[in-house]
């Protein structure tokens, strides 16, 4: 049985702006994020920073599916936290940025979990 957490988010866009996605797995846990933007470019990394989603006019009415998989590897902490940022400017210092949303999960030792979230751009 898969250990998954699903979420759907509606996000309003302005047609004049360009949107970026950043995803950070916090609390020192291991894992990564993969998503494909409406233009067909696939992004994958342990931390996604300023991945292009697209211009507001191009993504309005579209959905983006994101998969963040996390494994509990921090010897000091079992809490999992995943934060995602949908921004219209590229983030230069993630530590000062405010997340658009986040997921939290209290894992067991070495537990793996997948966060599946769909962002509907409106």
């Amino acid at each position: 049985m898969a250990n998954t957490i699903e979420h759907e988010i509606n996000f309003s866009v302005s047609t004049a702006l360009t949107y970026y996605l950043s995803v950070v797995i916090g609390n020192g846990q291991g894992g990564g994020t993969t998503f494909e933007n409406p233009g067909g470019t696939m992004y994958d990394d342990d931390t996604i920073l300023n991945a292009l989603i697209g211009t507001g006019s191009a993504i309005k009415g579209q959905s983006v599916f994101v998969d963040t998989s996390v494994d509990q590897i921090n010897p000091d902490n079992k809490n999992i936290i995943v934060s995602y940022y949908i921004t219209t400017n590229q983030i230069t210092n993630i530590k000062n940025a405010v997340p658009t949303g986040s997921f939290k999960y209290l894992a067991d030792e070495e537990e793996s979990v997948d966060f599946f979230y769909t962002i509907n751009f409106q």
Partner: protein
Amino acid sequence: MKKPLFIVAFIIVISAVTTYAQDKSFTTIIPSSAPAFTILGISPTEISKPNSWNALQGALYQNFNSNNQGTIPKNFALEFSPYWLSDHPNFTFKDYLDKSGFSLRNLNISLATGTVQYGRDSVQGLGFGIRIPIWTAKSTTLQDSLTKTIKENQKLRTAGRIVIVSLMNSRSKTVGDFFKNIQDSLQNSEQGSVWKNNKDLINRIYTDTLGNSFDTTDSLAKQKINIRNCIATYTQNHQKEFTEKSKQAIVAALKEIAQLEVSGALGMVFPTDQFNNSRISKIGVWSDYSFSLDKQKNKLDATVALRYVRDFKIDSIYAANNVDVIGRLNFYTDSQQKFTLSAWGLLRFISASSQSVVINNLTYYHNNTAWDNKYGVDISYKVSDNVAFAYSFGKGYSDPFSLTTLKSKLVNFLTVYYSIDNKALKASGQQYLNRSL
């Protein structure tokens, strides 16, 4: 009489244990030795490690409260890092691997209760301790190597995510069309693309899970979630061994790094088991420096420590100041510490008050000084991932009540350690203490 029974029990335990591939190091089986435990001189069998403020409050309330009154639990041990009681959303695993420099995130606080010797009596004691590394060697090479290891151990999950994202965005009508698209992506994608970089593992996921489990003529829309969950289950189940490897690599690598740690602890006793009748029994501060002597193979490391402990006056037993110099050398046969040999020694300088005289309402003490020492060897053998034996022998401290005659205790005991779900516990081991002149 005890020895033959013990040997029989030993043989039964050994023969009952199946030999498994050993992935966990010895240090994951033995309980930790936090300052609060050290000042009380106890080795707790179960240690609470709260991960949040609520869990910390819960642990303290449950154990120190009885019928809405403060109480001292019989055997309690707790250790936590204040930093990790809160979430740190932007703190990635790469940040965790950078242990250089002084940081309060490495501060650990411990609290323990247990039965302790107080003069010639045994009473309930409480210990409170803190420890923090004040200097850690920076090792960029080690950090980079560890980051690479962790990322390598994530590859199966990466491959799974690529297929899942592709699946969720797919507009194929049938399951068969989607499978064909996966094969096309693997064949035709450019070098350096996520498909090409993860080709082998994506093929493995396809072969092990998708190829035989789904009817290719089925509607993809109908099967999308099932396929997605099938891939997620597969990667999660197969990931566990890689996650364990990553964790062990982190613990082993951090142990390699030279570190100077400072600790402090306070011991209190409650002669009548009541909170309002307490005395400070001991206070201690110490510093230890750990370093690897064999950076290539990590089979030899050492710790040197300097410690000051003050024993407070108890009734007719006068106060004493103890200054210890401690050294320990550890040898491991392999990275999983299947067999460990440790040699250790302690040299103690004692300055104890004795006899007092009162002159003009002021109390004057006569101080005696003495040297004491203990040394020994610990041998441990890890039978499986969850069971280990440790045998210690050597010379203990002199009898504190006959310091002038320096009668020494010969230390000789065997301990069995076992862990359940990574909680280190200690079985009630056979303990032999012999006094020798």
